[in-house]
């Protein structure tokens, strides 16, 4: 028996090909067939969705403006040492490139870029560029210093060299309230300019609060629906699904109508005499408004997974626990509740993921104090036009969401995601 060699045991098909490789071939063909069906959508999502997001993330480190506008100045600064003011040749090159830059209308971008790192320096650049047009010859150093004495500040030159690098981490640093100092060390922003870390903390905290409130409200009604006869529970389900299917903006509008100071709830409270007509409650255009409206909007995402888990729990477990002498709270806590944990996990992660990146509702009902991280991304995209910072804030948010998505996939599995 031991003498049988390996090739004798190989089973072949009729035409002499080993069965194993034939099988592998057939399997490979089936794999390709399956993949070919998925390929169109995969390619579509990659091009229309993934590439744009990667492109945006690239913007958070991309830093081409200064390197493209002042390349020769940067080359001349190569040998410059920190703490000095450069000599005439550097000024001459800079003057030439600044004039070219203002003709090409790129110098404004350089000024804006420098201003991010050194607040108040925008005018130094724009003013100098404007006046340089009239200066036809040197000595340039004197002329520069006459236009703005900041050119004699070594820090300005250090910053110029710093932002000349084609790639930078400074947007990410700004997004976590840090910055480079003139020498290139990483330090925290001055106290009064630290806004993003508190904002991230606030966003996390509000999302947690919303998740908690959703769980608190969803658990009882999911339980009720899971234990009632199907006819009634279907009817109640409509009350959960109708908000789910109703336009987001409609629901947000309703909350404005209900909560505003001249709104329905305040009117009822005044009519009932609970509050005076002159001290109506401010329930909207602040954090309270954001939280109430978002809990309402995200509640169905908690109810549905909880309900689908609770529906599978047999009522006989509870009856068994009771008949063995457990009090109702104990039976609930030791028998029923542990079985609902998967539903709690699925619903909570889903609600948290959706809450953390929410934009519309805080923007409409949040007022000044109810803004979340997404609103600041939109602000930098549309108003301040600091796209690098918007991309860096977005990159951090994206990283957090993807981590949660991974967790969700591990715990629930995306295949098990259910809708409606």
């Amino acid at each position, binding site marked *: 028996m031991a003498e049988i060699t390996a090739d004798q045991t190989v089973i072949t098909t009729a035409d002499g090909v080993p069965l194993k490789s034939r099988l592998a071939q057939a399997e490979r063909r089936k*794999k390709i067939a399956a993949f070919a069906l998925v390929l169109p959508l995969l390619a579509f999502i990659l091009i*229309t969705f993934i590439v*744009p997001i990667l*492109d945006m993330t690239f913007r958070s480190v991309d830093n081409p403006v200064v390197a493209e506008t002042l390349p020769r100045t940067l080359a001349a600064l190569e040998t410059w040492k920190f703490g000095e003011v450069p000599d005439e040749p550097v000024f001459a090159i800079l003057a030439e490139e600044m004039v070219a830059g203002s003709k090409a209308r790129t110098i404004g971008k350089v000024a804006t870029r420098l201003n991010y790192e050194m607040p108040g320096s925008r005018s130094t650049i724009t003013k100098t560029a404007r006046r340089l047009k009239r200066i036809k010859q040197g000595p340039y150093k004197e002329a520069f210093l006459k236009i703005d004495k900041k050119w004699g500040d070594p820090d300005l030159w250090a910053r110029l060299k710093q932002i000349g690098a084609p790639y930078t981490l400074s947007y990410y640093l700004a997004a976590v309230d840090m910055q480079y100092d003139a020498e290139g060390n990483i330090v925290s922003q001055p106290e009064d300019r630290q806004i993003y870390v508190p904002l991230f903390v606030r966003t996390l905290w509000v999302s947690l609060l919303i998740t908690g409130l959703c769980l608190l409200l969803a658990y009882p009604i999911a339980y009720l629906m899971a234990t*009632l006869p199907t006819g009634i529970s279907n009817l109640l389900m409509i009350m959960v699904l*109708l908000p789910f299917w109703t336009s*987001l903006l409609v629901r947000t509008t309703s909350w404005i109508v209900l909560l505003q100071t001249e709104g329905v709830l305040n009117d009822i409270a005044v009519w009932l005499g609970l509050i005076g007509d002159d001290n109506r409650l401010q329930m909207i255009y602040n954090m309270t408004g954001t939280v109430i409206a978002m809990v309402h909007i995200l509640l169905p995402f908690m109810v549905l997974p909880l309900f689908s888990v609770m529906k599978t729990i047999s009522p006989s477990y509870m009856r068994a626990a009771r008949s063995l002498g457990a009090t109702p709270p104990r039976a609930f806590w030791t028998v029923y509740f542990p079985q609902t944990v998967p539903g709690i996990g699925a619903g909570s992660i889903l609600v948290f993921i959706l809450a953390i990146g929410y*934009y519309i509702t805080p923007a409409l009902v949040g007022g000044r104090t109810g803004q979340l991280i997404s609103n600041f991304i939109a602000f930098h995209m549309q108003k301040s036009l600091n796209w690098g910072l918007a991309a860096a804030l977005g990159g951090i948010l994206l990283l957090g969401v993807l981590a949660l998505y991974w967790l969700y996939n591990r715990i629930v599995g995306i295949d098990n*995601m259910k809708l409606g």
Partner: protein
Amino acid sequence: MAALPPYAGPLERSWYYGFRVLCGLIFLFLIMPILVIVPLSFNAEPYFTFNESMLRLEPEAYSLRWYEDIFNNPQWVHSIKNSFIVAIFSTLLATFLGTLAALGLSRAYMPYRTAVMGVLISPMIVPLIITAAGMYFFYSKIGLAQTYLGLILAHTALGTPFVVITVTATLVGFDHSLTRASASLGADPTRTFFKVIVPLILPGVISGALFAFITSFDEVVVVLFLAGFEQRTIPRQMWAGIREQISPTILAVATLLITFSIVLMSVLEGLRRRNERLRGIRST
């Protein structure tokens, strides 16, 4: 919870009723915002609260003037048209691509299943503001910003995860011996597909399509960044209305949208029941 047992003590009894009252309040919280808006949209006065004559149900206190407003305003009419154009085309595209992908994903031989699924579902998970920002930069670069095509492609990407999820869910219980039976009876793959597979997965496809439709129809963040004035949709118009000066016309639009979502929801519920009947699952 199903029914109160006859031996229940007073404590248990009060808990039983207390719990129902609590649930009633939560349901009220869910449904009240939607119910309140409907009567207010018929308000004859430009206010957002019930006045006494409305509460006394006087006919003069109610009117259809805000509804007339919608249809007399070319901006609203234009945005309604835009919403339907974008939603219909992106739904068609999303349904086609999504169904095809779901058929592939449900095959036993699909390689890298989890990873591919992860990528395909990601448009649903990534915060819309990030999606919108990314698309804004990229679509501007390739000349698709402020065009209908750009908006349709963007909404298609957002809608496909729903189609993939619903169709794969329908395929989970799919009995593959049915296709083999069809083949053994002499049908070629095309015929098998249209005569056996399509009728069985159709409910999933349609409900996925409805989800894709409502996603596009309700989407505003991407529209804010990607659409020009010409491509304004209903949500974009509502957004402008709420931000600038909220007029009761918005309540009228909202009421129409609520009616629309009730219709969509009923269709979906009908499909779900049909699907259960087809597969022989009886709800108990």
